[in-house]
């Protein structure tokens, strides 16, 4: 009977199937061996992973040599547009502390990294997860009905809050408190590091305030809504944006309106982050007889912005220079 012969043949085949599965053993052995390659780790230093270079810089200020710090996003890339790369999973998987900007800035990439990290210490709600926005001053919290018709709006407020030195101080305090919680024996060290940073920041703020004082009330345009904290802090008025709505490229009608508004109000300066194309801002500037100024929105955004204080040093210097050129003050 043909059917029964087929049954016997297939029984033999099942035996061979089992044997062939053993052929996978060498491959599995190699995988396990690679998994046990020793990985060098810091001795006792807390490993801090920060989502941005700004947070990383503040963690270094407070943590000193008691922490090792890694930043995921570079200062010259759009922090909304970060790929959740497996190499980031590795970093997050080894973290003792994960510091996030929060306010949904990293909504498109950080949750996937956290889930894949297999690291219970930094899961949301765990001791090692730190939302840096919890004690800062947040602007532009939407009220009323929020829809995507408003663009890529952040329901919990503008996440670019680190661009105010007062918020930087608050973030540093929050990081200090977290480090003390995780390494209480180093409390005095972290307190001293924070106090030193606070002193240097306060001195720098006086300098920046003096530099920007002549330009208080000056109206400018920015590309994206990255600068409300910065501009509020130094008394500049943002009267419009190159983007009609957050994350939405400018249509011609919006550009025409913006040019008209800038001409009417005599606005000559457009501030742009380093990751945007300068083509549209430059065209607008040409129409209004103004200029485009690329500022660093983050540490590492330009090579001069090597840490949190140097970030403001660079931006304030560049901004004051541009405003002086425009206004003659």
């Amino acid at each position: 009977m043909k059917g029964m012969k087929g049954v016997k043949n297939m029984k033999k085949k099942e035996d061979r199937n089992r044997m062939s599965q053993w052929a996978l053993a060498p491959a599995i052995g190699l995988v396990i061996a690679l998994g046990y390659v020793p990985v060098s780790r810091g001795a006792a230093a807390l490993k801090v992973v920060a989502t941005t270079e700004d947070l990383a810089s503040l963690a270094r200020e407070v943590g000193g040599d008691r922490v090792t710090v890694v930043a995921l996003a570079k200062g010259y890339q759009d922090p909304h547009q970060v790929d959740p790369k497996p190499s980031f999973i590795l970093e997050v998987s080894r973290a003792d502390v994960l510091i996030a900007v929060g306010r949904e800035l990293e909504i498109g990439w950080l949750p996937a990294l956290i889930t894949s990290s297999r690291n219970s210490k930094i899961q949301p709600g765990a001791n090692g997860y730190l939302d840096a926005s919890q004690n800062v001053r947040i602007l532009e919290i939407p009220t009323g009905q929020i829809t995507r018709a408003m663009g890529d709006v952040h329901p919990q407020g503008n996440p670019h809050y680190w661009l105010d030195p007062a918020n930087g101080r608050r973030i540093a305090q929050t990081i200090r408190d977290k480090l003390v919680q995780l390494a209480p024996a180093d409390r005095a060290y972290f307190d001293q590091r924070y106090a030193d940073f606070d002193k240097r920041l306060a001195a720098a703020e006086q300098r920046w305030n003096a530099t920007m004082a002549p330009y208080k009330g000056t109206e400018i345009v920015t590309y994206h809504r990255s600068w409300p904290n910065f501009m509020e802090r130094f008394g500049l008025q943002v009267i419009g944006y190159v983007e009609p709505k957050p994350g939405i490229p400018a249509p011609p009608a919006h550009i025409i309106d913006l040019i008209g508004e800038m001409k009417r109000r005599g606005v000559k300066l457009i501030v742009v982050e380093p990751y945007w194309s300068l083509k549209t801002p430059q065209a607008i500037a040409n129409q209004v007889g103004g200029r485009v100024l690329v500022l660093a929105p983050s540490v590492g955004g330009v090579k001069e912005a090597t840490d949190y204080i140097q970030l403001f040093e660079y931006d304030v210097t560049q901004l004051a220079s541009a405003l002086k050129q425009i206004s003659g003050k």
Partner: protein
Amino acid sequence: MKGLSGTDGRGELQVPPAQQPPTQPPDQPPPPQAPPAGLSSKVFNPDMSVIGNFVGVAGKNAFSDQPSLQLTEVEAAFQAIVDPYARADFFLAASPEGLEVEEGFITFTSLPKNLLLKVGKMRAQFGKVNPLHTHQMPTADRPLVTQNLVGGEEGLSDAGLSLSYLLHNPVVFLEAIGEVYRGESEVFQSPQRSKLAYVGRLRAYRDLTEGSNIDLGASFAFGPTDVAFASLPEVPETDVPTLNKRLFGIDATFRYRPLRRAIYRRLNLRTELIWSRQELPDDLHAAGFGAYGLAEYQFARRWYAGVRADRSARVLDDALVDTGVSFFMTFWPTEFSQIRGQFRRTNFAEGISGNELLFQFNFSIGAHGAHIF
């Protein structure tokens, strides 16, 4: 145009800088701020989103019954953290065939020893295309090799367990995944409880530069099929031995995205090669091979263009080989919608060719969780 509101009336700004004392604020946090609109009542709700996929087809294809215009799928997603130890993700797919749970699983995120466990119904981690939901595809369809050898649109999606292990080493990101499934999918069909389907995957990834990386994978799938039942109708079902199917695949992806211009430029190159071995009665087997190569380039902020070349044997008749090529272009008005056009030419093994123009509208509402890279 309206300027920013809220810059007046703030104490810090009313004091001329020259008169300001050192700007240290007190250690206390700023005054409590109003919660975002509607947040308090929805704080424990899962992230919810709905994604629509509308596909239109024009042209001739003798082997396709795809209608001219169709809302092919509506995916509803519900995602949230369950507790300190796990999160859950549900994806319901409504299509003209009905409503089904495309995926629904719990992920245990806090296991020891670099382990990650998923339990539920999932798209298996076989290769690069199989785990992707429709809206994640760079094209309006799936490659021929997926259609012919890996279960088509539904793919290898089943109820089971997935355990993955991160192999820490200083050279590469290395992840090993082992999965066990019930054996009830478009690829495997288990006749009894004791016969399960197995999937294994090893993935290696390395950054080449800060803007480029290489991603390599090898996948294996093994499980029972129902081929024997059709060929041995005279034998009692309990005596029919299982005819198994094996799938082996390798994939390679190169990505380039310059960080300073990440909004405007991106290049993805991907290939996937899949071998299928289906046991047949009388000690015979059908061994099929298929592959695709895909290149996708972002040439402007909202524009992508790409090409895909396809080749694949049929799963039960390896002498029949289909080939094809597609050219596609995608426009993203925002990250929440995309409009795609695709020209697809398919040369079927029977000597018939199909030339089709596909267009696709993909649109989402709500909060859809990030997908892993």
